[in-house]
């Protein structure tokens, strides 16, 4: 916030002007223990970043094998059981150990206190515990994989998972169960932080949209995850202790499982997309040099998505034999929840109007997000229409749809945020041309991978098929080729970002000339986040005076070290 009144002389970059200020959070202790027992939200964010990167590449490797196998209609690289275990591994790891923690636990952890002018999260120790819970869950699931794998798919549908599968279901489910407590802890922590630790002047309607996104995501964390935990306990109880709960042979109801599971897992989709929306709101305003268009509508839209998202779960079950009237109610609510998403897209577009638009790599990712999210959202309308859903349910159309949202949109936003805040987090600049190239490659690779899947699905190719009728091969070959491009695009940031840690140029405190409290401290910030006490005097995204268009300011501040 340009109105943030911090004593300007305390914001010096110590490398350029040594005022004897505290060192950055990275320099406070270099031992392994200083990382593993830290309560600094910024260090915990780094721990999370390392673990989700690890899981991202595990899930990605499984996806690569799946796409390789689908190159031809027959089975030739792995066996049917291995194939089933691979797509299950891909789904479980990507959903629970990459996507759900991705933006909240890395950028959320790092930036939430910085953006509201706090010294740390409300419960720093709980924050550390939540990382350990997340790791414990992830390792339990990995143990299940090493022991022989799990073949139920990420949805664990009963009675297959409880009675029929001969794989390590209990162990993997236990892993997901444990990681659930990690997300609940994070949610509680974020909610308390936003309520109690805002700096003077940081009113609710001056919160950056990223903070609002974290807040609404945390509400879903806290309200939905216990339902998942309960459901998974019931699965373990039936499988391990032979209690008749879902098994229809003993009077149970397998559809009950689906209701419980989707009551969590549909809101979980919004857990994956709301943080992405927050990141995009920060990035687009900065590179368009514009105030966000319709700030209050953007806030209401986030809240509306989080609330209505709780009442649409039934649209996953239109073909399960649900009453036609229940199906229509869920269909209606699914159309309604699309309205706030549409509003957000229009507002981002309108934010570009009369801006001074720059095309640095974070902005390229953000513009890619806009296109992919629009595609993913609109194909959601097809699935919300009952007659069309009956045709494309459980086909590659659904696979393409949710990858457009979860990978196209969420992962693009993740990379947008990663590049945008990289200088703040690490104090280093990455090679911009490499980053731009990776952004473009990711966009084209993504579309080549997933657009053909819409067609294959509409033509009738079911998902989770190890072998498939040969007429679908052309679409699968296109998709698999795209996956190769996408894999290369995902590996590139791993390379050049790592390179930048050692050889990148030193970052200025505010390299993008952005508003926002996180830029009003050094890069990287000290343990205490701020020198002096931040105070907020202006609304967010104060890139130009109201009613006056933004001028052509330089993106890289040329004001020296003092911002």
């Amino acid at each position, binding site marked *: 916030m340009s109105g943030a009144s911090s004593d300007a002389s305390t914001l010096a970059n110590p490398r350029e002007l040594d005022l004897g200020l505290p060192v950055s959070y990275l320099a406070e202790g270099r031992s392994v223990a200083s990382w593993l027992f830290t309560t600094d939200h910024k260090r915990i964010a780094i721990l999370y970043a390392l673990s989700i990167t690890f899981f991202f590449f595990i899930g990605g490797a499984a996806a690569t094998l799946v796409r390789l196998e689908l190159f031809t209609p027959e089975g030739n690289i792995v066996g*049917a*059981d291995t194939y*089933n275990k691979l797509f299950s591994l891909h789904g479980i790891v990507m959903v629970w150990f990459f996507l759900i923690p991705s933006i909240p636990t890395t950028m959320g952890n790092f930036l939430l206190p910085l953006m509201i002018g706090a010294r740390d999260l409300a419960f720093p120790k709980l924050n550390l515990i939540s990382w350990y819970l997340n790791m414990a869950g992830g390792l339990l699931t990995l143990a299940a994989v090493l022991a022989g794998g799990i073949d139920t798919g990420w949805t664990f*549908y009963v*009675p*297959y998972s409880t009675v*029929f599968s001969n794989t390590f279901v209990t162990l993997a489910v236990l892993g997901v169960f444990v990681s659930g407590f990690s997300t609940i802890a994070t949610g509680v922590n974020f909610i308390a932080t936003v309520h109690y630790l805002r700096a003077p002047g940081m009113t609710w309607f001056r919160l950056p949209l990223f903070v609002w996104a974290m807040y609404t995501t945390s509400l879903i964390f806290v309200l939905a995850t216990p339902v998942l935990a309960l459901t998974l306990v019931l699965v373990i109880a039936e499988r391990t202790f032979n209690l008749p709960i879902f098994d*229809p*042979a003993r009077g149970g109801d*397998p559809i009950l499982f689906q209701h419980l599971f989707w009551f969590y897992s549909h809101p979980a989709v919004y857990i994956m997309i709301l943080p992405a929306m927050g990141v995009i709101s920060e990035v687009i305003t900065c590179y*368009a040099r514009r105030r966000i268009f*319709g700030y209050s509508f953007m806030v209401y839209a986030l809240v509306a998505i989080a609330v209505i998202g709780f009442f649409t779960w039934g649209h996953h079950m239109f*073909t*399960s*034999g649900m009453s*036609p009237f229940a199906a*229509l109610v869920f*269909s*209606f609510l699914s*159309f*309604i929840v*699309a*309205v706030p998403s*549409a509003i957000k*897209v*229009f507002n981002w*577009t309108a934010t570009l*109007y*009369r801006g*001074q*638009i*720059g*095309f640095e790599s974070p902005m390229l990712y953000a513009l890619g997000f*806009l*296109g992919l999210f*629009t*595609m993913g959202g*609109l*194909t959601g*309308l097809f699935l919300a*229409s*009952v*007659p069309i859903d*009956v*045709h494309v*349910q*459980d*086909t590659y159309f659904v696979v393409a749809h949710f990858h457009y949202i979860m990978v196209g949109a969420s992962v693009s936003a993740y990379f947008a945020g990663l590049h945008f805040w990289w200088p703040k987090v690490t104090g280093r600049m990455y090679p911009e041309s490499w980053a731009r190239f990776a952004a473009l490659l990711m966009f084209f690779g993504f579309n080549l991978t997933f657009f053909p899947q819409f067609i294959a699905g509409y*033509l*009738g190719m*079911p*998902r*989770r*098929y190890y*072998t498939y*009728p*040969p007429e679908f091969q052309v679409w699968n070959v296109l998709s698999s080729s795209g996956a190769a491009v996408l894999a290369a695009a995902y590996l590139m940031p791993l390379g050049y970002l790592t390179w930048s840690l050692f050889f990148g140029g030193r970052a200025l405190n505010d390299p993008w000339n952005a508003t926002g409290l996180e830029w009003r401290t050094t890069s990287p910030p000290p343990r205490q986040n701020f020198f002096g006490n931040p105070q907020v005097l202006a609304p967010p995204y104060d890139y130009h005076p109201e009613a006056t*268009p933004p001028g*052509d300011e330089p*993106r890289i501040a040329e004001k020296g070290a003092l911002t």
Partner: protein
Amino acid sequence: MLDALIPAFLRPESASVQAAKVDAIFIGLLLISSAIVLLVVGLVVTFAIRYRRGSSAKRGEMPTIVSREFEVGWTAATLFIFVFIFWWAASVEIGAFSPPKDAIEIHVVGKQWMWKTQGPSGTREINELHVPVGAPVRLLLTSQDVIHSFYVPAFRLKRDALPYQQTETWFQATKTGTYHLLCTEYCGTDHSRMVGRIIVMEPQDYAQWLTRQPERDGLAELGERLFSERGCSGCHNAGSKVHAPSLAGIWGQSVPLEGGRTATVDEAYVRDSILQPERDVVAGYEPIMPSYEGKLSDGEIQALTAYIRHGTDRFDLIGSLNLAPAQNICAPGQTPPESAPNQSLRSPVMVPGAPASGDTPP
């Protein structure tokens, strides 16, 4: 006519009354969505070029006051469009929900990893279903193990088959031909091989095909029905409170009678026990069963006997097919795994590409 908007190779085969309706909504939605994508992408690209950094485009005064009008305007517009699509899709769904009264009834049983179907006259098929064109067909689905889903892309038809529950759906084919039948609910190892075909025939061909099906011995089914209708099951079922011997698996066994004698359970013994129950009472039981003399015809006694011979505990629609999971077949057009030694043991109907009626030429 809207179909012409999509090139043929991007269109799935459309062979049912429902398919045409679904396609109409799909194309409508596709047009609306394309318009929105073009609008958004068009505006983003236009703004990105026109208002790129340092461009000479006039920025002018920022219109602050219109912001709220814009917001309300496009919120209302999207709400209107989305509710309209919902209304359209919902009306099609409601209109097509109930099958016509005269629909042909087909029972479908899913099991790992095959589809079993049974028509109204008792014709049974594995991974195949023959139906006449133009006639409504009502499907009653269930599963023997896990959840499966019965999917015929050409009919835009999908319904889950749930264990121990019955679901139903219906279709009316409009074109003769052979169409994919696919399982779309993940069900384990050979989920992707749980595929078959729907063969839509001209009504006269269908009638001919029906006559070529082997006569089925319906006696045991009749017996099963009589067993409960005439009250036998009230005492002889396992859960009954009345002290009566269970009839499960007793065929061919010798049973101890009152007074140290034994009897072998065969047609004569069963018939005698129904007509003169007090004569040879099984040891340890009271002679409480009433005589059915004059209450059952000979045919009905035969049916009951057939049912008991079959085994009252083992008899059910699913079990009578009695196929091992390993015998499931490949999709039409796929080659079976080379390592299948028992391939020749399969019934002709299970061999891909074989005429569905068996060896007899049509």
